[in-house]
């Protein structure tokens, strides 16, 4: 059974441990700006929403990449950026309608969530279980799927 990240904003306190855990896992440094997961703050509503790539089936980023630098990890289903291949053209960053693949100016490469190879650091670091890594069926990704479908009718047929 494939698993995916399940995010429950109601539980999030905005501590951003997930961002640090992610940057540490991915970059070996505590640096939220390098995190693949970001906590968005809706101060006026006291809502904190962690958000990252949902490894959507459509994989616009992967499709748009001119040099095949984004590939599927067959174990996790994650779409993974291969930095050695990425030329930094940024086409994937505009192709992804969720805004979850970002360009790193300092390195000239893009970054996105790769599910840490199946053991996501953000979920482990979250002190409130706002982020969990669970069976895909339970993640309620429906909303995202609906959104995804709106973006490209082609998706309808692949499901």
């Amino acid at each position, binding site marked *: 059974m494939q698993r995916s990240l399940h995010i429950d904003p109601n539980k999030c306190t905005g501590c951003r441990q997930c961002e640090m855990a992610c940057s540490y896992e991915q970059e070996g440094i505590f640096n939220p700006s390098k995190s693949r997961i970001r906590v968005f703050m809706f101060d006026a509503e006291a809502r904190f929403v962690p958000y990252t790539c949902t490894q959507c089936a459509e994989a616009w980023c992967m499709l748009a990449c001119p040099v095949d630098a984004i590939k599927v990890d067959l174990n996790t289903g994650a779409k993974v950026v291969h930095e050695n291949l990425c030329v930094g*053209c940024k086409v994937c960053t505009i192709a992804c*309608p969720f805004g*979850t693949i970002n360009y790193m100016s300092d390195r000239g490469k893009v970054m996105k969530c790769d599910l840490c190879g199946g053991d996501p650091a953000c979920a482990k670091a979250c002190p409130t279980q706002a982020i969990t890594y669970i069976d895909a069926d339970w993640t309620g990704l429906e909303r995202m799927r609906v959104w995804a479908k*709106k973006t490209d009718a082609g998706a309808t047929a692949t499901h």
Partner: protein
Amino acid sequence: MNYLILGAGPAGVVAAETLRNTDPDGAITLVGAENEPPYSRMAIPYLLTGRIDERGTHLRKEPGWYKDRRIDVTSRRATAVHPGSKTVAFADGTSVPYDRLLIATGARPLRPAIPGLDLPGVHTCWTLDDARYIMDKARPGARVVLMGAGFIGSIVLEALAERGVTLTVVEMGDRMVPRMMNPTAGGMIKNWCRSKGVEVLTSTRILGIEGNGGQAKGGFLASLFRSKPANGGGALTVTLDNGHKLEADLVVISAGVRPNIEFLADSGIVMDVGIQVDEHMRTSAPDVYAAGDVAQGKDVSTGHNNIHAIQPTATEHGRVSALNMAGRPAAYKGSLQMNVLDTLGLISSSFGLWMGVEGGEAAEVIDTDNYKYLRLEFADDRMVGATAIGLTQHVGVLRGLIQTGVQLGPWKQRLMADPHRIMEAYLARTQA
């Protein structure tokens, strides 16, 4: 089922793969006109800068990728399509039958009617072959004139500058990337490039190019010259409409593109600028589909058929057309015109109706000193277009917001006040 795909660019390759995933049994033939493995034009600038080698431009890199998927890849030029007999004629004299045909022959660069364009040392930048030539000529210190600062021209600009040439860019429009950027943004990019040592001349035309041996004609002799190194190729003189003349070792032309449709002239397929397709990527001929730069498909912003000539549109076309060809009806809502550009480190992007719509509203923030800019265009409470400079985080969400036409409700006003809250607007309106 026997699938034939003309064109081994991104549209053709994605179509071939999608066909294979959807129809495990069909026969798939992928034909390109250049004698190269399927590659990506978009990667050429990175080949020029040395970031990748030629193999890096190949669309798929694993050995045996096409073979494993039973995709037959060949190189030959199609010269005619006969929808009546369901065959395609090739330049090598063969005729190949198909059950379903995809035309994904892409586009080629325009060559404006200017004297001297055929001279050795004057070149487009479109194919791998072009890239090889330019790499040979554009040595550090070489004087290079780039004609056209459109979207692709600007990408080539970056690559040439990185090669260490002395670069002058000549654009006849009143600003850089006129078809992607409004005057404010185009102006910012121009100032940036100038501050980085690239001479940018806008509202300027090239009247003609002369070799130092006088007005040379293209042809056999010219092609001999082409294999000579930069210093031996002879200097060129570029005459501008402002009376100035520029000395150059190399002139690169980037003056727009035109779809490769000439070989379809007698096919009866309905064409405008490119091949007209419906929402299922079908042409007017039965069992003939078209995708990518050659196809004039639906634009989600206008509802009209347009050519976008961009990579994401090409691959989406490829995927949707293949689904339909394989008998899985999929209606395409249309593609979104969008671009992202990196000019010497300044990152800019534009989406959809960035120029706005009549009766619409816009939100804009400008920081000229720091080269930051964001403008959002709205029609009622939906976003229809956007232009950004200096934005690298969560840019894609602009596409999402525009393409889905999500109603922004109270977030419209919030975005009017602070356009940078796009990610929050998206999350609030669709996820939270």
